[in-house]
């Protein structure tokens, strides 16, 4: 921690204090800037080649309209207009918003409780629990989802005796939420736990001397102090739920009537591009979704700006 904080100020201090002329100072600054750019270069090249250029290309094709008979024509924002008017896009957006509203608090609360518990206890059990909760994150999403597909089966699944159809229209969103929680709660727990480990222990001691109970310490001291980690974990969860894709796509064959091909905006965009060859329309949907995610994240960051320290 301390090293990271001091190094940026320490470096110019070594060059600066001699108090040379303005010219040498400017040369030094330039040299510094060049070094900085050199360090950033590998990242910048990859960013441009694999993110910005593809995005620019996707934006370009989203302005064209391609039909099977007439081919490609420039169409300004027609695809965007169509996407905004498309009830299937709207249905998907509403679904991921509802999903995010329920999923995010459930996931974060679970992760926080687990992190606080293993932070408070330092027994062998807590180490085992920490690992066990993290293991689902180490399982690839596809494999984890396939596994849950079998667990949900009403002929071979262990819950078949309940008589619940886990993949019907009414239950499937909850079933998917369960998979997502299983997969990601442990990851969020580790993020929060790492933040807890970084807190100064003396604070707890003084709280205890002041007569605070362990629960009070957890809720009133620890939780507020890891505010920025909480904001970060929540932000990632919001972005993840809005871009919901892999889990529903993999479970789709189990009940395509419930998990339709427009179940989430991402699945719809995927379907348009790779089943119907509507690359242009797909690009427009993707950009709209990107805008929703951006606005959603921004609203969240703005609302939590006091806690996040991310500004």
């Amino acid at each position: 921690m301390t090293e990271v904080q001091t190094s940026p100020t320490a470096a110019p201090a070594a060059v600066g204090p001699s108090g040379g002329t303005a010219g040498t100072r400017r040369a030094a600054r330039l040299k510094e800037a060049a070094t900085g750019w050199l360090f950033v270069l590998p990242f910048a090249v990859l960013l441009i080649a694999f993110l910005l250029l593809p995005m620019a290309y996707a934006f370009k094709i989203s302005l064209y309209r391609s039909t099977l008979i007439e081919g490609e024509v420039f169409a300004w924002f027609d695809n965007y207009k169509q996407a905004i008017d498309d009830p299937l896009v709207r249905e998907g957006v509403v679904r991921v918003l509802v999903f995010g509203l329920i999923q995010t608090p459930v996931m974060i609360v679970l992760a926080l409780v687990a992190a606080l518990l293993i932070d408070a206890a330092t027994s062998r059990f807590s180490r085992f629990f920490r690992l066990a909760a993290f293991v689902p994150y180490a399982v690839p999403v596809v494999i984890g989802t396939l596994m849950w597909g079998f667990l949900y089966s009403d002929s071979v699944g262990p819950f078949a005796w309940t008589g619940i159809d886990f993949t019907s229209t009414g239950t499937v969103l909850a079933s998917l939420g369960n998979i997502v929680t299983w997969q990601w709660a442990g990851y969020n727990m580790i993020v929060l736990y790492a933040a807890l480990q970084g807190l100064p222990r003396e604070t707890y001691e003084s709280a205890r001397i002041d007569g605070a109970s362990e629960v009070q310490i957890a809720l009133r001291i620890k939780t507020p102090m890891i505010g920025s980690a909480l904001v970060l974990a929540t932000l990632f969860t919001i972005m993840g739920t809005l871009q919901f894709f892999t889990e529903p796509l993999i479970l789709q064959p189990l009940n395509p009537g419930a998990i339709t091909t427009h179940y989430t905006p991402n699945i719809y965009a995927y379907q348009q591009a790779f089943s119907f060859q509507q690359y242009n329309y797909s690009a427009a949907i993707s950009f709209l979704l990107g805008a929703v995610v951006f606005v959603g994240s921004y609203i969240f960051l703005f609302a939590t700006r006091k806690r996040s320290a991310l500004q």
Partner: protein
Amino acid sequence: MNIGNFSARRVSRRSVVAAVAATALALTGCSSGGDDKPAEKPTGTVTVKVWAWYPEFKAVVDQFNATHTDVKIEWTNAGTGQDQYTKLQTALKAGKGAPDVVMLELQEIPTFALTKHLVDLGKYGANDVKGDYAGWAWSQVSSGDQVYAIPVDAGPMAMMYRDDIFKKYNLTVPTTWDEYKAQAEKLKTASGGKSFMTDFGANDGGFMTGLFWQAGAKPYAYDIANPSSIGVNVNSAEAKKVFEYWEGMVGNGLADTTAFHTTDFYNGLGSEKYATYLAAGWGPGYIQANAGGAAGKWKVAPLPQWTAGANAQGDWGGSSFAVTDQAKYPDIAAKVAIEIFGAKNSEAWKIGIDKAFLFPTVTPVLEADTFTGKTYDFFGGQKVNEVFVPAYSAIGELDWSPFNSYNFNQLTTNLGQAIEKKTSWTAALDTAQENIKTYATQQGFKVQ
């Protein structure tokens, strides 16, 4: 066999082709796109790249390469169905990376023919083998003298039934759909609701279309030679009759709606959950591999009829070999497409039939005793092809749309949602019809 005379025939064919192509160029310029390439003279062994996902296909390729010195197949499994089509579309659009010869399911041929990236095999002797195929199968791959692919296998439909369950509950083998329903009711009562008559998987557009096909529905009127005009009649009276019937079966608890090709579906076939399975000609091999639990207890009977005594049949699935415009030697690629599973290539068909359980479209193979007389242990020694082969011959013609992914998606999505929300199946067909018409218009088709 064809193997010895391949090279001799190829040379003569090539010179003919070159002459025809030159004439065509002189007469029409380049009107029909890039497939009028005059055949270049290859030197040495020509490698033909083939994409296909048939089971046991490696053995077929090895057999082909072992018996040819002038041409060699380089085979890639580029994924099953949509996975391969996605790669193919991309490669065709990019202008490079596509194979010379590619496996296409019958329902996908208009989709790819519309892109103008398929070579007209009629120019390379495909019409010479027309007589080897049933009329409906040839019409699936051609328009007049233009041939877009060579048929390989098909999926004539029949009813697989569990002999043990039928005996246990004293059911008789139904010959009409009315009888089928009556037996289903009997089964439901007798088994205490434990067994369903069958499973109606709403996730397979090919299955639904097969049943529409039998009922005489013509969802589309489309001719590849006139690509921008299409007739859409997805919600025809015939199709609605089929859906009304099955809505009743499902609503009365006589048929299940577990999605096809899922674990629960296979388990249902292996246990006593389903008494029948409305199968395609490739169904026996498929069931045997995925749900072998009830081996020896299955039998096959013809598909029940809408009219007593009629012989109406439908097809579910099937595939073909097409040649893309990226083939350097389209004449040789066409020969490969024609010969891999050609009428004379009985060695390949031995593998195709015995190991891959393909249902051949070439009538000389189909009508041979080795096929019709073949007994299957899975079916308690029954000669099941005695049912499938006549079904194949009785299938009528049916046009596919040039946007079949969308077509199947509309059928499965709307029916799937109707089943989930317990709304009308025929209304689902009406929705599909409206959506497809809108889509076709948006895509620039003249919709009739």
